[in-house]
């Protein structure tokens, strides 16, 4: 087959680069995950441990709690981002005065580095310096993310939504830009209203892109580190210590490489399963709707 050869030729550079910087490190992490390896341990170097790390992990309450927190964070942020992104993309598609301006403003948070987003929000919310606690206090709301676990959680959620909704919107706009115009024109001619166009043309045609945005948001939210780390440091207590931050703490300050690697592999596996299930459910639904 000649055409298949062409396809492999087109894929080759991608596969080589991802193999080098993606697959090789993964194999190494997988290998380390079956070992005990701590920098400050009596025995230096890797010691074979079989599946001990994984056995321990399944009953590790700290890890499971961090995973649960990460999941809760992901569900809150991603669902709100998707709805907002969809609405905004729909609104930004229409022509109105100042559209370019609003679109640029809306995308602005995306240009700020996650680290800086964390720092900025910390400066907004730090008790004694930030304007948020100061002005909220004036209207009688006691706001202190260094103390209230609930407030800290929702502040990270709010920050994440503020930062990443533009990503969803832009992804949808990218998808929209390649769609044929005829169905929209046809619907207009047939006198369909806004809602019908949105529900029966916009949504189904945008489905592949919606799926992509959903995946990317889920995986990025589940493994989040730097943004939340800058804002709360994972606190107060363990309130915002999401699973990515938990692994970070095990690998770097505690230098427990073996256990950290096992955690990473398990989390990666978890994310893959979640995405695979979503993919199956959504493509299944499409097939059923099609018949």
């Amino acid at each position, binding site marked *: 087959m000649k055409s298949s050869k*062409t*396809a*492999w030729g087109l*894929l080759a*550079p*991608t*596969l080589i680069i991802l193999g080098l910087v993606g*697959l*090789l*490190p993964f194999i*190494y*992490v997988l290998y380390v995950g079956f070992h005990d390896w701590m920098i400050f341990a009596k025995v230096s170097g890797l010691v074979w441990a079989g599946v001990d790390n994984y056995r321990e992990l399944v009953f590790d309450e700290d890890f499971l709690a961090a995973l649960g927190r990460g999941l809760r964070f992901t569900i809150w942020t991603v669902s709100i981002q998707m709805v907002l992104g969809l609405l905004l993309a729909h*609104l930004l*598609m*229409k022509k*109105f005065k100042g*559209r370019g301006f*609003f679109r*640029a403003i*809306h*995308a*602005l948070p995306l*240009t700020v*580095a*996650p*680290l800086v987003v964390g*720092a*900025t*929000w910390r*400066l*907004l919310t730090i008790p004694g*310096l930030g*304007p948020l606690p*100061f002005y909220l206090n004036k209207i009688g709301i006691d706001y202190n993310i260094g103390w209230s676990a609930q407030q800290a959680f929702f502040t990270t959620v709010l920050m994440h939504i*503020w930062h990443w909704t533009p*990503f969803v919107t*832009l*992804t949808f706009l*990218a*998808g929209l*830009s*390649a769609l*044929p*115009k005829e169905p*929209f024109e046809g619907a*207009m001619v047939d006198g369909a209203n806004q809602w019908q166009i949105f529900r029966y043309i916009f949504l189904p045609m945008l489905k592949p*892109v919606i*799926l*992509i945005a959903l995946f*990317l948001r889920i995986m990025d939210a589940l*493994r989040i*580190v*730097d943004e939340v780390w800058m804002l709360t440091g994972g606190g107060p207590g363990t309130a915002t210590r999401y699973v990515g931050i938990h*692994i970070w703490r095990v*690998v770097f300050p505690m230098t427990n490489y073996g256990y*950290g690697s096992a955690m*990473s592999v398990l*989390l*990666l596996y978890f994310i893959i399963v979640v*995405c695979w299930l979503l993919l199956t459910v959504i493509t299944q639904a499409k097939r059923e709707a099609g018949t």
Partner: protein
Amino acid sequence: MKQSARRKGLKQVFLYIVWIALTLITLFPIYWMFLISARSRVELFSNRNLYQTTIFWENFVRPLFQGVYGQYVVNSLIVATGNTLLVVVLAVLAAYALSRYRVKGGQNIFFWTITNRMAPPAAFMLPLFLLYSRVLRIGDLQLYDTHIGLILVYCVFNLPFAIWLLKGIIDGIPTSLDDAARVDGASTVGIIRRIIVPLAAPGIAITALLAWIFAWNEFLFATTLTSVKARTITTGLVEFVTVVGTNWGEMAAMAIISLLPALLFLVLVQRYIIAGLTFGAVRE
């Protein structure tokens, strides 16, 4: 007729109110960052106003001209632009292959590419560090602390993202156009260049923009895989957090500066993609 016009007017007003409210919410944290960059250390803790009449220029001048941050900005520009070019070219080729050909295991390859982006970063720093400083080393030549090293490693998160986004877009382009060109004797590369790229141009522009922003803002890889020569501006920002306390003013100032190139790129791409989005013209 008159009533419907009034209703339309009301709707318009409502829409503008929504947009203005959203704009204020979006801008406020960035505005606050600007306020902090314009205040001295003392002023920072005493002045709680939401406006500013003076600018404390030292926050900008000292790090940019007396420190190493100017060089860091240049490094970031090289790495982000290099990575974006590489990613967009490779992703268009790969997405086209996955969209148009029935490759054995194509679905699995497609899914595998995205799993590269799913990995939690912490544990993957060590193998990448070893790979860059020990394994791929010829004498003094190594990937550690080089621009090309960062350009390659950023493919881990940018390439899968670009392939997925572009495949969705290329899937939307009717295959009849390819077939027609093939009948006319165009090669595969010719089809990609003359049909796919122009039609997917707005999508490619957004992909490039997002990839560039991801690369420009990346922190964890940059801080692990560079030391002096290839350090980027985001790693520089953390250097303001020191044991004697954080220099918020200078950090905010550098953050503002690091935001400007991304903003410029954003505005340029936006202007370009608006041309591709023509539904609005149909709608009115």
